């Protein structure tokens, strides 16, 4: 019960003039060191890549409508299609998308005026467009065919020159990711207000911190692997070529030492989002706050010890059991999060906003992806379904059912803060319905065809699988359509949505204790955080939120007709 007298009262007058003064759209196309602009730049760029990658997924599903090769010219063309789909979704969509929310929200949640290194922040973002051009150019020149994992010798002896460009692009994206992560770690450690100890920090910041620690420790291994791949492709070395004393398993070891932790880079921030959204929209404190924060660190740590489970069929047999055990251990911190989220919403005053729906969608889908993950960790089962659609199903459950649902939850949750206007809730619910049903019927049946033996990464398949594949493809088209709904909603709401006000969700974290959108310096005075970022349901928190509402009430209706 520390101070509940909110020091925001004096701001009212100043806020009024600044309210809903949004940056001009042209500012988003220019170099800017404002973390809020950079956050939106990341977000819009990543979403564009999501649409491009999604369109490619639609093509993949169109090809798989029939057992024969019909849409694509050749098997090789199909190979390059799923290669670029995976590459775009992982390197150009999910990782930058979390940088978007991290950039926009983390400094605000910490009450900071900007990130620790604003210039570096902008530079990290502006590495992405050229990297994307390089990768996409490769696709049109002479495409890579080796999948996003680019195993040699496929990627050294068979793939086209696009593979070289792919490696260069991935290099740039890795460097961008490292610079962004250094920025996040320094910001989170150094720039919190004096009242906010690390144990009072919002859980999104915990998750971004864990993510950034993984990124700075693991991404250099990707840089190492890509350097070797480039040398093998252009300089005639034989690091991956057994004929010259090299070893193809070398790539798998180094690459997965990066890429397995990288899957936590892709999902941990989503878990942070979930803690925020579930707590705010069910009006209850996060259950087991410390355990949620520490389990992020636990996942980050254990994540470094499991990489070889991607190599169960190529690894020395005696190493399989240890990696099977570490892989199963990682279900423990993830399970802690699951139970604490359930404990959070249990008995809460749940408001089924679109953000909440997507968060609950994440809960139900991620748990399926988690369970199929434990199944895959079991060595005998993994050998059986290795490289089948079961694996495809598993990682889409965690990366789409997990990460993308969390992206949508975050979008509906923070859109009012970013733009000052609310999203359309009715469209949001329709969007959720299409996404959830489309997703479930796209990816759940893949478990079945996978266990029946349909291999992944093939354009032709046995005729007996056709009914399953038609169900999957049809649902995939529904899923593809659902993203058009959210695009329409975002554009419509940006111009015509209801004015949000400072704190439409009555949330306690600091990003809501300023105008929407926040002024250039984020806060007019240094904000004082509430004693507990999730202390909902107490009189003190109600008093704090009322004081915030009062401080900004003059600001909200001032805009009226809209600019």
């Amino acid at each position, binding site marked *: 019960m520390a101070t509940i007298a909110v020091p925001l009262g004096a701001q009212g007058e100043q806020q009024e003039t600044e309210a809903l003064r949004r940056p001009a759209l042209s500012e988003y196309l220019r170099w800017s060191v404002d973390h809020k602009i950079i956050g939106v730049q990341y977000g819009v760029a990543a979403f564009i890549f999501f649409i491009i990658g999604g369109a490619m997924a639609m093509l993949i599903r169109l090809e798989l409508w029939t057992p024969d090769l019909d849409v694509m010219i050749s098997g090789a063309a199909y190979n390059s299609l799923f290669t670029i789909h995976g590459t775009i979704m992982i390197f150009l969509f999910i990782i930058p998308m979390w940088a978007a929310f991290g950039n926009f929200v983390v400094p605000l949640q910490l009450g900071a005026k900007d990130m620790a290194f604003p210039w570096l922040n902008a530079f990290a973002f502006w590495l992405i467009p050229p990297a994307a051009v390089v990768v996409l150019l490769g696709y049109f020149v002479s495409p890579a065919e080796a999948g996003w994992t680019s195993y040699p010798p496929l990627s050294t002896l068979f793939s086209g020159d696009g593979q070289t460009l792919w490696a260069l692009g991935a290099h740039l994206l890795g460097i961008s990711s490292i610079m962004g992560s250094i920025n996040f770690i320094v910001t989170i*450690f150094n720039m919190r207000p004096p009242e906010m100890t*690390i144990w009072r920090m919002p859980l999104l910041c915990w998750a971004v911190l864990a993510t950034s620690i993984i990124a700075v420790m693991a991404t250099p291994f990707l840089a190492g692997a890509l350097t070797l791949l480039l040398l093998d492709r252009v300089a005639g070395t034989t690091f991956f070529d057994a004929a010259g004393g090299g070893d193809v398993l070398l790539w798998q070891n180094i690459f997965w030492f990066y890429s397995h932790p990288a899957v936590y880079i892709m999902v941990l921030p989503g878990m942070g989002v979930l803690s925020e959204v579930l707590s705010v929209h069910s009006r209850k404190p996060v259950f087991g706050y410390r355990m949620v924060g520490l389990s992020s660190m636990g996942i980050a740590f254990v994540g470094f010890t499991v990489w070889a489970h991607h190599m169960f069929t190529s690894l020395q047999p005696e190493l399989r059991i240890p990696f099977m055990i570490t892989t199963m251990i990682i279900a423990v911190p993830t399970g802690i999060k699951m139970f604490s989220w359930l404990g959070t919403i249990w008995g809460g005053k749940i408001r089924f906003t679109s953000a909440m729906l997507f968060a609950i969608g994440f809960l139900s889908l991620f748990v399926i992806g988690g369970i199929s993950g434990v199944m895959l960790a079991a060595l005998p089962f993994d050998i059986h379904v290795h490289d089948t659609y079961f694996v495809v199903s598993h990682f889409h459950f965690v990366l789409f059912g997990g990460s993308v649902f969390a992206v949508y939850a975050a979008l509906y949750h923070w859109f009012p803060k970013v733009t000052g206007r609310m999203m359309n809730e009715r469209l949001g619910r329709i969007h959720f319905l299409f996404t959830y049903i489309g997703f479930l019927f796209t990816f759940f049946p893949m478990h079945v065809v996978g266990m029946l033996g349909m291999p992944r990464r093939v354009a032709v398949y046995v005729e007996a699988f056709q009914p399953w594949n038609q169900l999957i493809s049809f649902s995939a088209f529904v899923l593809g359509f659902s993203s058009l709904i959210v695009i329409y909603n975002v554009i419509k709401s940006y111009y015509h949505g209801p004015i949000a006000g400072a704190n439409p969700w009555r949330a306690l974290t600091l990003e809501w204790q300023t105008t929407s959108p926040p002024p250039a310096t984020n806060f007019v005075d240094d904000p004082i955080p509430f004693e507990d970022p999730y202390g909902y349901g107490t009189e003190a928190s109600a008093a704090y939120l009322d004081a915030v509402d009062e401080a900004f009430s003059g600001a909200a209706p001032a805009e009226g007709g809209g600019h």
Partner: protein
Amino acid sequence: MTSTVHQGQKPKLGVAEMRLKNNRLGMTIFQISWIMVFLALIVVNWQLRFSYNEWPPAGVAPFDPLLPSAATLSLLLSSLLIKRGLDALRAQSPRGFLMRWRGAMALGIAFMAIIVYEFASVSDAAMATQYGLTMRLMTGFHFVHALAILAIIIRVYRSGAAGRYSGDEHDSWAVEGTAKLWHFVTVAWIMFYVVLYWIR
């Protein structure tokens, strides 16, 4: 990680203090992060050894560690002089700073000259195996970093010669940061030196 550091209420830092604190932590994290690439290359070296029954492979003469040891000593002294130069600047002795950095640059260039010589004189027999390939990979990769950071040292030295830095730590981050980068190059090299020349 450092939860205890942030316990208790501390006064808000000024802009200059905050910038220095951020720069220092950022540099530390960068060092921890980027050393991982060098570790990755050590893993590469290590795993490729298993392709052969013996190391160096049969018919390949092992590298002579004499010159590389001299190079390593030179780099260590260079790194030490860089640090002593920073200390001199902090002690309000700009001339001592410049003098020591001249020595550090000379020793650094000597190090790099030996490395270039070693890189160029790998035998064809060695290059036909991973013994020579990984050696060139590692020394080459390290050389690129040494060269880039030497360029930064020269640039900072010229600014120093123009009297741009006072002894105040808020005013001379460029000197401190550059010194830390050179220490990074030194540590990375010592790891490589041990793996390449002493672990058989």
